[in-house]
């Protein structure tokens, strides 16, 4: 959309408008789909970017904003969509990808939390689900998926930042995503979930140190993506499983995606390494998004070639 500034952070109202405008301006390629409702009854939408074809296409899924305070994440989803739509005619790599693959992009998964972080508490992380008669709020949506739920690296106390909810998929936002992914899982090749911070490309699992069946290939592709990023932009990204290079945690969307059979799930932790942490200044949006775009398209390209 004209005048939309991709190098600034945008509140949810503007992101909703942006999504509507993106579909209107790119009708031949983009469809906005309803996904479900949040705890506070807000609609969740994702964008499908799909070149018309009589071929059955596989799917690349990307979600952003599962943790409210990680603002660079939704900024990247918007940047990604913009780059694809601006360049799909002129860039042979993107043009080839869209011949074989559909892109599904959820720019903000945790809408209520994101709005809360704009209006009330910038460092809010969780959703806005009320517990204990409204005396405590919020489930960590990335501890709420049905992947060894509640087993490790979580809290059962609502006041914790990593409260895992009252059960697997207890949260409407989790269920909305899980239901779509479950329905389309046989066509989804790649599940990308974008977070900050730390500068990591993470593979399964967080809930166990037992490696996934295709861990060598997952590592190879992630290392290729990280090397491309470092080679061109100089930023260093570490690669590995969450349990081996960070800490253990159960209930993550990425682990769940692999457990239901999606072969290439990755968690991206974007800039930086702590200098600004969750409060990454706007002047870092462009360099962060440019380097992440390269890493993401490297992964998608590998999957496409395969």
């Amino acid at each position: 959309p004209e005048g939309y500034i991709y190098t600034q952070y945008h509140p949810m109202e503007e992101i909703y408008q942006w999504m509507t405008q993106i579909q209107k301006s790119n009708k031949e390629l983009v469809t906005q789909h309803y996904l479900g409702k949040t705890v506070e009854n807000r609609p969740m939408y994702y964008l499908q970017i799909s070149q018309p074809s009589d071929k059955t296409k596989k799917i690349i899924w990307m979600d952003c904003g599962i943790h409210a305070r990680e603002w660079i994440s939704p900024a990247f989803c918007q940047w990604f969509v913009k780059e694809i739509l601006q360049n799909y005619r002129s860039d042979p790599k993107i043009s080839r990808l869209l011949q074989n693959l559909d892109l599904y992009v959820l720019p903000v998964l945790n809408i209520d939390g994101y709005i809360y972080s704009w209006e009330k508490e910038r460092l809010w992380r969780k959703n806005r689900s009320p517990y204990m008669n409204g005396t405590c709020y919020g489930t960590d949506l990335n501890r709420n998926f049905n992947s060894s739920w509640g087993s490790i690296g979580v809290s059962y106390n609502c006041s914790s930042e990593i409260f895992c909810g009252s059960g697997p998929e207890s949260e409407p936002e989790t269920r909305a995503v899980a239901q779509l992914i479950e329905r389309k899982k046989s066509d989804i090749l790649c599940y990308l979930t974008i977070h900050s911070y730390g500068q990591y490309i993470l593979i399964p699992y967080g809930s166990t140190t037992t490696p996934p069946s295709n861990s060598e290939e997952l590592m190879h592709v992630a290392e290729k993506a990280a090397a491309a990023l470092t080679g061109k932009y100089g930023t260093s990204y570490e690669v590995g499983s969450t349990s081996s290079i960070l800490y253990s945690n159960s209930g993550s969307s990425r682990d769940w995606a692999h457990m239901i059979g999606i072969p290439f799930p990755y968690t991206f932790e974007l800039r930086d390494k702590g200098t600004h942490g969750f409060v990454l200044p706007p002047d870092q949006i462009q360099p962060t998004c440019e380097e992440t775009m390269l890493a993401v398209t490297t992964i998608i390209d590998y999957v496409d070639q395969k």
Partner: protein
Amino acid sequence: YDGDQVLHIVPETLHQVQHLQHLCSTLQLDLWKPLLPEDIRAGEDLQIRIPAPLVREVKDSLDQCTISYKVLIPDVQELVDQSMPRERSSHS
């Protein structure tokens, strides 16, 4: 977040790890990395946000245990204001 600070610490010994775990749990500090006190390890990065009223107390406690630290963010609110459009920042 006026006056809140984010500290970077790399605990060197088990004793320092235990002290930090105790501090984080008792004062309910906002752990940025890792997310749980039990994931604090010797030799690994720890990044925590300290609310302004607790900054002096926490730093004194770290000094007493000869735990060295670096101030990554001296005022969180200043950064928060930078990330918002002008008309939304608290100072505006």
